[in-house]
């Protein structure tokens, strides 16, 4: 699992590369728990190369969801592979989180 952050003005573009399992979700949790991240108003998560997400990985996003919502930070997922999206959907997270098809759409929604 490789996590890279790209910062543009008030937007953090976080790219997830590989499999988000029990061990790599710890790294993700550290990244999302960083107080620095609360300075930005938009977090866009690029899931193009996210091949698999375990329940532990989902748990990390879920645990931070409320915090971002309270701080009025938008969390948007884009470029999600079908099988990963299916996992989000089965759990019902598609109704709770913003999942869009591509970057442009993500930018548009983020700027609303």
């Amino acid at each position: 699992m490789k996590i890279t952050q790209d910062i543009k003005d008030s937007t953090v573009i976080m790219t997830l590369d590989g499999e988000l399992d029990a061990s790599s979700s710890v790294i993700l949790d550290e990244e999302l728990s960083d107080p620095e991240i609360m300075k930005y108003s938009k977090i866009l998560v690029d899931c193009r190369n996210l091949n698999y997400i375990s329940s532990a990985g989902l748990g990390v996003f879920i645990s931070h969801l409320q915090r971002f919502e309270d701080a009025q930070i938008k969390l948007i997922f884009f470029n999600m592979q079908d099988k990963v999206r299916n996992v989000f959907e089965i759990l019902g997270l598609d109704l709770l989180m913003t999942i869009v098809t591509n970057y442009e759409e993500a930018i548009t929604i983020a700027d609303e």
Partner: protein
Amino acid sequence: MFNERKFFLPFIKQNTTNSQKQLLPKLSTVFRFMLYKTNVKSLLVTAAIVSWVLLLGNVLLMAESARQPGAIKLALPYINNLLIIVFILSVFFFQRFSANNLKGIDFSSYLWNLFSKAAIAAYLSIALYFAYKLSTGYARLQSPLLLHIVYQVNFGLLVYFLAKAFYIWRQLLLYHKNKFLQVAWEWFELLLFSTLILTLLNFNYTNYIFLPLFGLFGCYILFLCTNLKWVAYLSFNKKSRSLVLLGAILVSCYIFTKFFQEFADSEQLVIDYSDVGFLALAMLFVGTYTLAAFLVSLFSLPTSSVFEQKSEDLLNFQRLSQSIQQGQNESQVYNTLFESTIKASDATAAWFEMVRGNNTHVSHLLNINNDQIERIRHLLMAYNIQNIDYINNNLDRNTGFRDLSLPWKSLIILPIKSKKHVFGTLYLLRDIEQGFDRETVNVLRTFTSQTILTIENLRLVAESLQNERYKEELKIATQVQESLIPKTFPTDSWFEIATHAVAAKEVGGDFYDFLQLSESRIAIIIGDVSGKGISAAFHMAQMKGIFHGLMQQDMPPSEFMKQANSALSRCLEKTSFITSSLYIIDYRMQGFMFARAGHCHTLYYNAMMEDVFYFQTDGLGLGIVRDKSYNNHVREMYYDYNPGDVMVIYTDGIVEARNAANDEYGEDRLKYMLTQTYHLEAEDIKCAIINDLEDFTGPDNLYDDQTLLVIKFKPVQPKA
């Protein structure tokens, strides 16, 4: 002979107490051997006694006839020689057999054996001779016969002494032998016995022809006498005791030699045993070896303490390295370390500090008080040299130590630490300068490194025991969890159910359960706790409790999910959530109600429409949204079932199982499997799916808990 029996009896007794039947053949050989040995020995004793008595008789006869010149000479010298040889051989061979019984490395007991049983004979013989002198001197008469008897008795004692000494020396000489020495000894024995032929043929061994030969033989003896390895194994005390015994044996040799020299070529006697070359040579060997042993013992006396120290060091190393097998604990190991290092370095004072966590405390003390320790430690702390290897062989030269005015002049600090841990520190003090030379320091360091090794191994052993205990507890957890999952469902004529559940680890987060709500209604729940292992297992147990608690009140599935979410919100970790599906089947209405909370879609076969599909319903997992807004995220569905319909309920471990190429099993393949098998019994459908899954993943490729339930509704309805 009695000694022989004693020697064998315990051995036989021990054997007979074991399995007797097996040992019977062995035992008979032992008996035969014993009989043979006893026979030979008694034969030898008889031969010795008879030959000696005959010899005495013949000598007396000769003496008598010599006194009366007119008498007929009955006795023959050749018979005398023959009897002498028979006597000597039987005594020597008897001792040859007896000496084999001497075993072990208690060499001073060999010497004591020799002295008490043989060397004492010399003192006896001299006493006998003086008694004869006194009695004849007092009575002022000459008694050639009495003199002959004394001479003859002394001859017997001499041969006995020589035989005993000869074979005890053989045992010692051949200690730590090699092949060469063994052969050399056998040749020596052979050569020595061959000199008896000279006696038999009445040759005079002092003849010039034999002199060079005897000279060579003497050299041979000298060479043999250099084999004194056993002396090195004597401790100082034993050596000094041995010196006394060896001295006494030397005196015995001298007495015998002197006595028979005195009577050599005597006019008073008809027989002269100093003519027997064998005895002279045997005496030469016994005397030389005794002298050599005496001198070597004497001169090695000052160095024996070094050998003693070395062997004690070795013994202590053994004790340290074997302490694990002997089940010792750490403090016993430190005891050994403390005692052995003090002995090895000859330290006058010492202390050992044990480190436990962040505390150090003095656990061992020798000739030093806490006040002095405190002062030394303060000084070391000032110099910043605690817990490192440090040697100071002249404390007086250092102003700091001089100011402490300690009675010691040398100090060594030996930390007991591995790369990871500090176990303690050992301080040794001596009252002389240069007290810790390089040799001693090497020995001390070997002790400390052995101790470190032992302590680390002890801790490893303890750790593995602890791990063993954890494994046992996990086994119990597995059993407890298995008992939480129902093994049997109520069997009824209107539906059949087949289940499959495996956990990836000892305990898992998957679960399923049922509750009979009324006569015609049953609630079935399946769930999956996020994560794996112990924490998942705890939440799973919690969920089971919630299911049974809430469903007692008989509520619709969506209401159950709302209440379960509210209950779990209070106790679930932030990153954990639970997915679940609850079905309430009512066979009187021929339908079921269900709600899905983020759980895998239910696979269904409709027999009427002959269609296989997934129920696509919305529903958020439990514990994701932890407030009232969850109520908007759960849907309830009602479905009428037909006889022959099949419902497949499972966890994500099934559809997300992967093969070697990292492909997922997937919903599509599961669906395909049901289209192929829906006509089978529930149990067979389940087996077909599981077999297909195992074919797909390959063996031993279980990464997530897997649960699968197959429910088939049957056409026959029970009578209401």
